[in-house]
């Protein structure tokens, strides 16, 4: 290890400490330069594959957040019972003893009464390992109510759940090493913030230098598109229609699909009855396929199947059955490129061109040898993320885009669309961590690793709602805004929910800003009688808290698994596995405590320490002698030690990792390009969604509740957003927000270095509008303008005129515009886009509850 990367024991006043960043959820490996107990510099750690020595401005600037004079340093208690936006809580300082006594008393009361009355909210800007304090507590306490504020509702419910179903991963990227043609739908992976940002940035740059063609579908010429070979400035919220038209061109105009892949690795051959469900055999209830050689139907796993029919129609015992692939092929015919042009504004000619290029680039039938292993070679990938899926058509848009990969056979093979590490066979000395996707009863894939117990597939069967999120009647959802929506209470009443929330514990989220317009969020939050918030700063959310507990910065604490599970923020593709740890660069000199340690103490105080230990045993697959005995109490340090030793052997506990910072070992081709080796199938026909629709309807009808079942179909459609239904010519533009590369959610806005950078760019604090459109409205660059939604909500900011945006679009970087007096640097800077977001059922995807993030607006000079 280079001297610079090691902890110097000889001179403790000048040392480099390996650790892990947490300024976004990429969790890049870093090394911290500490002199005389003061952190003076942060760099990327070149020893690690997570960041590969690179660090973005956010990571470098973290030093300013650490030493921010406005941090909370001691527990605070509210003395003003009135709550509201702009209402001073009138904080008084209290001791940790008083704070924890109060919190524990309330927790115990609720636990004894009805554990479901507790809601735990967490920011997404933390490592999954650090989420232990939330995960374990939720499960040990026995409440189903948990949320991630805006994080999950804006980006995760569609993209992550469908990536879980199709790639056994949280997200997906092109296989940068081998991909020759990548299409990005509303995504900026490799070009901005997000999962594994710094590693992917280099990989994407290398791929472009190598000649990878890159088509970016985005209303704005932003971080990815300005480095692309093609930018398609699509109309806001219409990506799904474009993907469906591409599928139509591939399947029906060009006849391009990878038949062997579809037969072997998808359910394209499964026979579908007229009710939309699988034809199943009578004995084992297994899905059936048509064997065209023997001319009969067999179960999908019958070893005598000689071939799988993908096309045609078959009469089986008097019932008409059609292979799922044929249904998809027929279904997408209605999405002609001409129709898609009307919806998306992308010319039909362009749609045909990119479809052809994508299909030909996949090189169906070709193979490649990597490290002596022969593999299919499909160097074409279609990926998507927040921009494409952040709409009312979220669920079907994600499905439509990913189907491009499945039909050309480019899913999780060299050159194609890769999940982030769905297969891991573990460190060579221990075989841990170990996870592999597996088939269910129907042969369909269950992901091998997932951060949450709520898997993307199979779904929990719908039933009478028990959670405030109503997830039991929205089984495709991962998060829900019902807990703050004005439509929540009517739904709870309709479903006869027997309780309401009485307490919230918040870990670093600022849901007043991050979910949608703050008036609606505030009304929902105010109804929760007792709120505890862990945070570094006072902000718009803590204004609603009853107790604020000062958390440690990530530069002051230890985390044993910042990058595990590897399906979240570990680089895809060949190379090394890497498990780094996070450790304190400096010690806090204030009365702050790490929230995970506080949650352990609270769990033990209220008598759920046994369940806590069992959750940790389960989550980290702890074996003897590292198993946590339910009856014993363990410190956080002991838990860290056991998890690390459980995975990497008795000699590699906390102290070993503190010295070395990380452990690496090489990936195998069978792990990275796992699809040929793991006997699982993924859907090209979403039968489980169709089946879920019947089940939801049955439950809802028991309560006399009418619901929208349009999303419960086996094949995807494009559905308009509410903004597309607005016909008033006065409201002629679509507004949207994008994730700025300089910021993470709302919390980095208070960082002075990032503020300075933000002021140097023409984008971060402004409203971007097409130059031609602005000229017609008499708007000049720098003018103060108002963006007013059809619902009457308004935001103001300086106009940034650019050619690089769709003529009908207004683009704003989220999530600026703080108003808290406790955010003196961020206050009043930039534009608070979320003001325009409605938090009601009309703006939720009725399938997965993803929030619609665009609005139809008019723009005028102030």
């Amino acid at each position, binding site marked *: 290890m280079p001297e610079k990367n090691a902890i110097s024991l000889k001179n403790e006043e000048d040392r480099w400490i390996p650790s892990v960043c947490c300024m976004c959820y990429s969790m890049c490996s870093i090394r911290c330069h500490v002199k005389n107990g003061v952190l003076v510099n942060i760099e990327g750690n070149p020893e690690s594959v997570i960041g590969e020595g690179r660090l973005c401005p956010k990571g470098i600037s973290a030093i300013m957040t650490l030493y921010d004079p406005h941090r909370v340093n001691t527990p605070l208690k509210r003395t003003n019972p009135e709550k509201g936006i702009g209402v001073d809580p009138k904080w008084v300082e209290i001791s940790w003893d008083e704070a924890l006594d109060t919190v524990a008393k309330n927790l115990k009361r609720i636990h004894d009464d009805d554990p479901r009355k507790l809601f735990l909210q967490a920011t997404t800007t933390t490592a999954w390992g650090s989420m232990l304090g939330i995960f374990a507590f939720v499960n040990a306490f*026995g409440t189903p109510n948990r*949320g991630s504020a805006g*994080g999950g509702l804006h980006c995760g419910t569609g993209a992550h759940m469908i990536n879980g179903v199709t790639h056994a991963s949280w997200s997906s990227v092109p296989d940068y090493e081998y991909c020759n043609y990548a299409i990005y739908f509303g995504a900026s992976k490799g070009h901005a913030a997000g999962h594994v940002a710094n590693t992917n940035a280099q990989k994407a740059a290398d791929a472009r230098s190598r000649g990878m063609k890159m088509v970016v579908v985005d209303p704005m010429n932003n971080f990815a598109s300005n480095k692309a070979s093609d930018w398609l400035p699509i109309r806001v919220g219409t990506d799904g229609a474009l993907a469906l038209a591409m599928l139509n061109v591939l399947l029906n105009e060009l006849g391009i699909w990878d038949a062997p892949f579809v037969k072997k690795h998808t359910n394209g051959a499964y026979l579908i009855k007229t009710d939309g469900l699988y034809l199943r055999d009578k004995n084992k209830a297994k899905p059936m396929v048509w064997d065209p050689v023997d001319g009969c139907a067999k179960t999908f796993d019958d070893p005598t199947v000689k071939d799988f029919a993908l096309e045609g129609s078959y009469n089986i015992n008097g019932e008409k059955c059609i292979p799922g692939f044929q249904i998809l092929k027929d279904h997408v015919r209605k999405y002609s490129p001409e129709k898609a042009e009307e919806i998306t504004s992308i010319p039909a000619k362009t749609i045909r061109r990119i479809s052809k290029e994508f299909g030909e680039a996949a090189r169906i039938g070709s193979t490649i040898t990597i490290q002596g292993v022969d593999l299919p070679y499909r160097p074409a990938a279609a990926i998507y993320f927040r921009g494409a899926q952040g709409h009312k058509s979220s669920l079907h848009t994600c499905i439509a885009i990913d189907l491009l990969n499945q039909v050309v056979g480019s899913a999780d093979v060299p050159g194609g669309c890769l999940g982030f590490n769905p297969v891991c066979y573990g460190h060579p000395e221990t075989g841990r961590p170990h996870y592999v996707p597996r088939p269910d009863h129907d042969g369909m894939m*269950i992901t091998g690793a997932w951060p949450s117990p709520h898997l993307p597939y199979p779904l929990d069967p719908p039933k009478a709602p028990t*959670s405030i999120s109503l997830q039991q009647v929205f089984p495709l959802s991962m*998060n829900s805004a019902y807990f703050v929506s004005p439509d929540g209470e009517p739904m709870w009443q309709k479903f006869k929910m027997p309780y309401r929330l009485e307490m919230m514990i918040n870990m670093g989220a600022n849901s007043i800003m991050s979910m949608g317009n703050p008036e609606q969020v505030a009304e929902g939050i105010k109804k929760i009688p007792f709120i505890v918030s862990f945070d570094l700063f006072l902000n718009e959310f803590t204004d609603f808290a009853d107790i604020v507990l000062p958390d440690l910065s990530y530069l002051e604490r230890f985390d044993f698994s910042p990058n595990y599970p590897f399906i979240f923020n570990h680089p895809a593709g060949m190379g090394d596995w890497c498990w780094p740890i996070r450790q304190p660069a400096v010690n806090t000199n204030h009365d702050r405590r790490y929230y995970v340690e506080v949650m352990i103490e609270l769990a033990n105080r209220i008598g759920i320490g046994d369940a806590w230990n*069992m959750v940790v045993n*389960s989550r980290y697959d702890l074996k003897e002698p590292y*198993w946590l005995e339910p009856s014993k109490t363990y410190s956080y340090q002991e838990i860290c030690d056991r998890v690390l030793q459980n995975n990497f052997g008795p000699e590699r506990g906390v102290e070993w990792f503190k010295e070395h910072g990380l452990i690496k070992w090489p990936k195998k081709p069978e792990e990275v390009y796992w699809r040929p080796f793991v006997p699982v199938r993924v859907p090209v026909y979403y039968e489980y969604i169709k089946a879920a629709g019947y089940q939801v309807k049955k439950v809802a009808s028991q309560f006399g509740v009418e619901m929208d079942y349009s999303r419960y179909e086996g094949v995807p459609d494009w559905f308009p957003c509410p903004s597309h239904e607005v016909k008033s010519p006065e409201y002629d533009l679509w507004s949207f927000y994008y994730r700025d590369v300089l910021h993470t959610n709302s919390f980095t806005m208070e960082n002075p270095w990032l503020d300075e950078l933000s002021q140097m760019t023409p984008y971060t604090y402004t409203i971007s509008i097409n130059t031609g459109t602005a000229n017609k409205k008499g708007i000049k660059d720098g003018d103060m303008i108002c963006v007013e939604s059809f619902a009457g909500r308004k935001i103001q900011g300086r106009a940034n005129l650019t050619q690089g945006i769709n003529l009908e679009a207004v683009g704003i970087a989220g999530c600026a515009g703080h108003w808290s007096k406790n955010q003196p640097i961020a206050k009043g800077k930039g534009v608070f886009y979320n003001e325009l977001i409605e938090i009601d059922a009309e703006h939720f995807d009725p399938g997965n509850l993803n929030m619609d993030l665009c609005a139809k607006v008019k723009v005028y000079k102030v």
Partner: protein
Amino acid sequence: MVKVTVNFYGVVKATLAEPRVDVEMPEVFTVRQLLDSLQNKCGEKFAQSVVDEHGIPRPHVRMFINKEAVDNYDLDSKWKISGTEAESSILVLPTSEGG
């Protein structure tokens, strides 16, 4: 016969309103047999919160027998208990999160 003490944690404990139950099992038994015994002992609430229509533990259910994690999709493998007592644990982890 072996007395298997089954400890419940989290939501399943709240649902059943019991921290643990004892069931009698043969020295060699399968997880399916254990689940059947638990259904007989604990009733419909147990079935609804722990297993699906095929009798397979739901995805968010974690089971352990003598500290060994049970494979939810391999319910017919045999567990041999040495001695007269064993301990099993059942966790239900229903939660949702985004990122």
